[in-house]
């Protein structure tokens, strides 16, 4: 049995590995991708080597990961390109079910650190399931990993820093969105203003960077629309037309690609698989695992850090990962209480400072009503099993059931994605129908396997 299994080789996972190494804790790094770096530094090692032009277009926020990804050398114990389909815990250990190019195995570790990062909040609206409607993060991944950029005409819709960054990366690639539907929807000024001031004081350069991105978009001549309503994607087999209303006027554009974004949320699939308790973030509308200040979940041997614990961005993820790794080393008896506490203090201070910016972003970029199934006219909620909003509403009204019963009755969340795309929306719809809070309604419980595996793979596991 190994001491620690680290899931995810992004900023958090790489930091945990490095920090545990300092305290002689044996750890195995596992990731789904063939290269380390996570989604933010996706393909960075390769691109630095082969595609300096692409690195320039992706900008400093991308190449900033150079030091981090190069910390991983050939000698590092790691398991890349491995698919994790199970995570179970007992009092003494955790067991990961995983499939790699080599084999399918059950890996036992004393402790696990989940660093599986964030994902984009699914954007549900009328026609969102048509091919050609894609997430901005997905499109950015295509650019990082393969140098792909959208073909004009195309429309970008969403809000938040990632949208501005991506449009800037496109402008640097000589590509211009046909329209940008800005969904920025802020909390009451009196709520965000105090945070805005603190963010400006502590992070003026990052705020300026954001303003620079916005300014460039405004100067580029891209038509920008605000107060978007009735956003609709139309087409038969794939997207042909996007329509919306802005300031009471109807607009439509013929295009084959619509890129959407509604902020990022923690990826909780593995936390749910391990039955860790989750909490609902009322302002940002997402579930995040209940953690102590060091990143320990409600399960004694499951630590969760980085964005998979709480959205803090890459820099925050690195600080949190160091805190988690040190605390874990202390628990394993490899770091004395005194030196743990001594090293912890400056990190906690740094994290507190980082959160000034986070609190501002949380209040300024709220999840948009345009993508909220309660506020819009979306029909299909569960894409895998083709369950409509009406079916979920009826199940919620008639039998006044909980979310997991609604799943059983309608099959929503039972498909391949295990509710990644519909889970939070199903919760919102039930809460609305039953006039309860989302926190009270709860979330779709984790079901194994997290990812599909064949009977052959399952049967090939060697016992012991």
């Amino acid at each position, binding site marked *: 049995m190994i001491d620690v299994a680290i899931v995810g080789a992004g900023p958090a996972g790489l930091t945990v590995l490095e920090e545990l190494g300092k305290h002689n804790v044996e750890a195995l790094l596992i990731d*789904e*991708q*063939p290269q380390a770096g996570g*989604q933010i530094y996706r*393909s960075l090692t*390769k691109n630095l080597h*082969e*595609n300096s*032009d*692409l690195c320039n*277009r992706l900008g400093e926020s991308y190449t900033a990961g150079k030091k981090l990804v190069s910390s991983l050398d050939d000698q590092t114990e790691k398991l890349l390109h491995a*698919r994790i389909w199970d995570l179970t815990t007992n009092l003494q250990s955790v067991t990961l079910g995983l499939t790699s190019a080599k084999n399918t195995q059950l890996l036992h570790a004393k402790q696990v650190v989940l660093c599986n990062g964030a*994902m*984009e909040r*699914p954007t549900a609206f009328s026609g969102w*399931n*048509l*091919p*050609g*409607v*894609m*997430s901005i*993060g*997905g*499109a950015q*991944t*295509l*650019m990082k*990993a*393969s*140098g*792909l*950029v*959208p*073909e004009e005409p*195309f429309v970008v819709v969403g809000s938040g820093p990632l949208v501005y960054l991506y449009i800037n990366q496109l402008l640097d*690639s000589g*590509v211009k969105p046909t329209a940008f539907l800005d969904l920025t929807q802020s909390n009451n000024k009196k709520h965000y203003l105090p945070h805005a001031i603190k963010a400006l004081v502590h992070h003026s350069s990052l705020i300026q960077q954001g303003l620079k991105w916005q300014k460039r978009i405004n100067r580029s001549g891209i038509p920008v629309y605000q107060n978007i309503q009735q956003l609709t994607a139309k087409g038969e*087999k*794939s997207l042909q037309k996007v329509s919306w209303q802005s300031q009471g006027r109807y607009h439509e554009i013929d295009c*084959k*690609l619509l890129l959407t974004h509604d902020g990022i949320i923690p*990826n909780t*699939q593995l936390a749910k698989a391990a039955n860790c308790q989750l909490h609902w973030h009322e302002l940002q509308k997402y579930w995040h695992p209940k953690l102590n200040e060091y990143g320990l979940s409600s399960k004694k041997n499951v630590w969760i850090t980085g964005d998979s614990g709480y959205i803090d961005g890459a820099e925050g993820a690195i600080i949190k990962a160091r805190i988690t790794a040190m605390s874990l080393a202390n628990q394993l008896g490899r770091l004395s209480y005194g030196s743990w506490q001594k090293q912890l203090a400056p990190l906690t201070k740094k994290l507190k400072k980082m959160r000034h910016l986070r609190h501002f972003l949380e209040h300024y970029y709220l999840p948009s009503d345009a993508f909220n199934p309660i506020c819009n006219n979306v029909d299909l909620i569960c*894409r*895998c*099993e*083709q369950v409509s909003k009406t079916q979920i509403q009826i199940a919620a009204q008639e039998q006044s059931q909980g979310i997991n019963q609604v799943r059983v009755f309608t099959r929503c969340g039972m*498909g*391949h*994605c295990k509710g*990644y*795309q519909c889970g939070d929306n199903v919760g919102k719809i039930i809460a609305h129908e039953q006039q309860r809070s989302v926190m009270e309604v709860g979330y779709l419980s984790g079901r194994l396997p997290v990812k*599909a595996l*064949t009977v052959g793979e399952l049967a090939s596991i060697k016992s012991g």
Partner: protein
Amino acid sequence: MFKRSMPMLDPVSFFFNEKVIVANKNDTVAAALLAAGITTFSLGTNEKTHRAPVCMIGNCFECLVEIDGQSNQQACLIEVSANMNVKTQYGLVLVKDLLESNMKNSKND
């Protein structure tokens, strides 16, 4: 939908529904198909639903295809290799067809 902004330094060819597609080495199957203008990766449980990638990071499962005879493969997580045989996945339609053909066969027996 998408175009390449860099030359293909290391071309690899594979098949999609028996048609040859040229991609760059290290492209995921999903990136290669999108760059080739493919819009339907699979048909959903209802025959009218066409599906294509959304998230590109392994969460949404909208990019499922059949690869070398194995169905339910996440095209965004698998890199192309020479002569790989990729096909549109026909969701439950295929299961229905299989059942029908099995029934026909058993009648013939």
